[in-house]
């Protein structure tokens, strides 16, 4: 049997090769064949999840909720010290200095990343802005969100904090951060699907000791991770409950 591994499309493009290294490492650890399928948008990935084609996924917190509650997946580990935080930024030269300075009628540039978009919309609420009084422009990447701001086609942009920090200095210096979320308990997780459930003990053990040898450490580094941490079932449920409160 060949298992299918995939990664949430919001991972940083610089670390694509890291996920291929991880896949090779994983196959050696499990003694099983694993195919890595990467997607450039959430929609296509969700179609394959719905069609039960995925067995192992590094998922963003919104998809994790759906995978656990609707598809019987189990979160096994999370990346150590990494949480998903969102930033709302505007042009550095703008008169806007706080979220409350943003006014109805603005255009907001965003991506199809569901957690960043939701957190961004929540942080606009304090300015009485919502879907009904702003225009949303969805683009494919954080670089394109920045481009919309620099071109003056959007007055605010939503970024994954990590995505914002990975922009070049030249681009980042032309923007200013209005607000950055500090939620800390919303993060990506590695989830295992029902077909692969029997491998969970072996997989968890291998992942938790991944940093113990040099090969594993290098693979982690190539994915920009330091280590995996165990994800208890109640911790997953808590994160899902929390996300549930953020969705109207």
């Amino acid at each position, binding site marked *: 049997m060949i298992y299918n591994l995939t990664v949430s499309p919001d991972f940083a493009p610089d670390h694509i090769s890291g996920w291929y290294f991880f896949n090779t490492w994983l196959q050696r650890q499990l003694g099983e064949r694993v195919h890595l399928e990467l997607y450039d948008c959430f929609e296509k990935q969700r179609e394959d999840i719905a069609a039960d084609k995925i067995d192992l996924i590094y998922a963003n917190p919104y998809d994790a909720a759906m995978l656990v509650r609707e598809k019987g997946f189990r979160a096994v580990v999370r990346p150590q010290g990494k949480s998903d935080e969102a930033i709302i930024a505007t042009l550095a030269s703008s008169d806007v200095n706080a979220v*409350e300075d943003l006014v109805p009628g603005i255009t907001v540039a965003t991506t199809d990343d569901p957690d960043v978009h939701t957190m961004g919309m929540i942080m606009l*609420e304090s*300015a009485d802005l919502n879907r009904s009084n702003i225009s949303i422009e969805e683009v494919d990447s954080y670089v394109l969100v920045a481009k919309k701001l620099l071109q003056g086609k959007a007055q605010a942009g939503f970024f994954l904090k990590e995505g914002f920090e990975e922009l070049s200095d030249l681009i980042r210096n032309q923007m200013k951060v209005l*607000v*950055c979320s500090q939620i*800390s308990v919303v993060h990506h997780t590695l989830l295992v699907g029902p077909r692969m459930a029997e491998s969970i003990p072996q997989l968890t053990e291998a992942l938790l000791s991944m940093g113990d040898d040099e090969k594993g450490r290098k693979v982690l580094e190539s994915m920009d991770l330091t280590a995996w941490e165990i994800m208890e079932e109640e911790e997953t449920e808590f994160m899902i409950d929390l996300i549930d*409160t*953020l969705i109207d």
Partner: protein
Amino acid sequence: MLSQNSDGPRQVQIDYFDGSSRTVDVVDREVPYPDGKLIVSRTDPQGIITHANQAFVDMSGYTKEELIGENHYILRHPDMPAVAFAGLWETIMAGTKWHGYVKNLRKDGAFYWVKATVIPNVRNGKLVGYTSVRRKPSRSKIAESEALYATLK
């Protein structure tokens, strides 16, 4: 960080739904909600706090140790009408999500406004508690809520 109005503290007795009551010092000073943060707490099915995040500790003025094991109603500000909380409990006990604007009382008698969402936590079909997440409300929603709650007292 703090904005201080000139009014001094006033002592108010708050009566809770379970028959208990306490006298609190209330000062007319608002602590602004911090940008980007969520206040998160969990309770058992009876409303006893079982989890509090750092933002909750910071904004409430209590230590985590003081919060855990207390009833969530220690945050109730005397300006909040009892009917607002009756609506909350009716909604969440029916298994659905509740949203509302709430004026919370800090340990030092000051207050902070939140947009609160409360959901029931169901595990294997059984209610095990509630999660409450609070976020920053807009000034216009606060003004609307203040006006509404004044009519419900």
